[in-house]
């Protein structure tokens, strides 16, 4: 079970609490988490990464286990603690003005 922590506005949009839980088949990669998240919560499509390019939106960041994973490629494996659910994968809205 993967835990994903979402920022306030995306929790409201997806009608979920602070964390959601995902079941991922295969390796726990950045791309697999985002694919599964969007499949389970279609309202989030386009809000974290671009519909067409699948690139992370500029003011979105990804963190887990104290590491900034924002620039990792989609196929990059995530830390074991994320894969086991011990630590959440965090989607964060960057601080960028009011």
């Amino acid at each position, binding site marked *: 079970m993967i835990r994903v922590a979402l920022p306030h506005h995306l929790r409201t*949009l997806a009608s979920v609490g602070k964390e959601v839980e995902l079941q991922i088949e295969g390796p726990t990669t950045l791309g697999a988490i985002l694919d599964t998240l969007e499949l389970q919560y279609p309202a989030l499509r386009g809000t974290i990464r671009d519909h067409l390019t699948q690139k992370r939106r500029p*003011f979105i960041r990804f963190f887990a286990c104290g590491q900034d994973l924002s620039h990792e490629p989609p196929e990059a494996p995530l830390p074991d603690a994320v894969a086991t659910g011990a630590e959440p994968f965090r989607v964060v809205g960057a601080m960028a003005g009011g």
Partner: protein
Amino acid sequence: MSGVRVLVGTRKGAFILTSDAKRERWDIGGPHFAGWEIYHLNGSSADPNRLYASQSTGWFGQLIQRSNDGGQTWEAMDNKFVYDGVPGTHQWYDGTQHPWEFKRVWRLEPSLTDPDTVYAGAEDAALFRSSDGGQTWQELPGLRDAKGHLWQPGGGGMCLHTILLDPSNPHRIFVAISAAGAFRTDDGGATWQPINRGLVSKYELPDATAEVGHCVHNLAMHPSRSGVLFMQKHWDVMRSDDAGESWREISGNLPSDFGFPIAVHAHEPNTIYVVPIKSDSEHFPPDGKLRVYRSRTGGNEWEALTNGLPQSDCYVNILRSAMAVDTLESCGIYFGTTGGQVYASADSGDSWKPIVRDLPAVLSVEVQTLP
């Protein structure tokens, strides 16, 4: 009993203001989508309970929301706006060509007859249409064939901000784009032509009378007389009596002919309203006096409407989509300011009162007259 629903988009959410036909006591609903920019929300004239909202932020991009119950509940619809084919390039600020990139939806215009058909005006400028209530969007790419490579962003971006649907001709649509100009289709959106003859932009364009490139801020039309268009350009208030084939200036005695919105009285097709702003460098009313100007002669002769509006130390702006009218017997006029006030007049502009004073900066105001 009839009433009015005022749909207000702000920098930090949407608000819905409701009143009975007297328009004296108001209920303030919201914020909806708190914390998000609501560039526009609009209702279907075919089904007044069907509303659409354009919701966005720099963080999470564009969302489209739909309500089937007059704004009590909302549902996120498709937010995938994809330009048709290879989008190509348009002119950039420095004169080079720049790729078309979707940024946000500035305007949502429901069909006059079908609640499930709605048009979306986008930045970078393009017109999209949904025929399934916002579940999917398709571009009408013929618009960008109207010399799109020469369009350029204005200060607010290259946005398609105005969509006028012709009530007497379902195949005719007018749109306006900053800074490209006004455009018209007569075949339902397949092909478009620039309609900018008579516009003069001597301070903004190398060729002051260019076919495209003019910074049109807003267009307005009376539904009974769809061949007559009124325009607030960057500078100049303009009028066309031939569906945009030609324009003439009607700024007349305005204290400044710079401004953003323009509106037409619901029952007097020759009565129009603008809010003069000092200049393109100073976006607030001249002399710190908030004055709506009304012409009852279709332009040129203007009178200041000040009763109830602040006449000193007022330095707000009124954005292009932030003025609208109701269709009650005594026509109501409404506008919102960047200071968060929404002013209303229930007597065609003779007197004004704030409905609400302290909202976030108002981006758009639309009015529904309810049966």
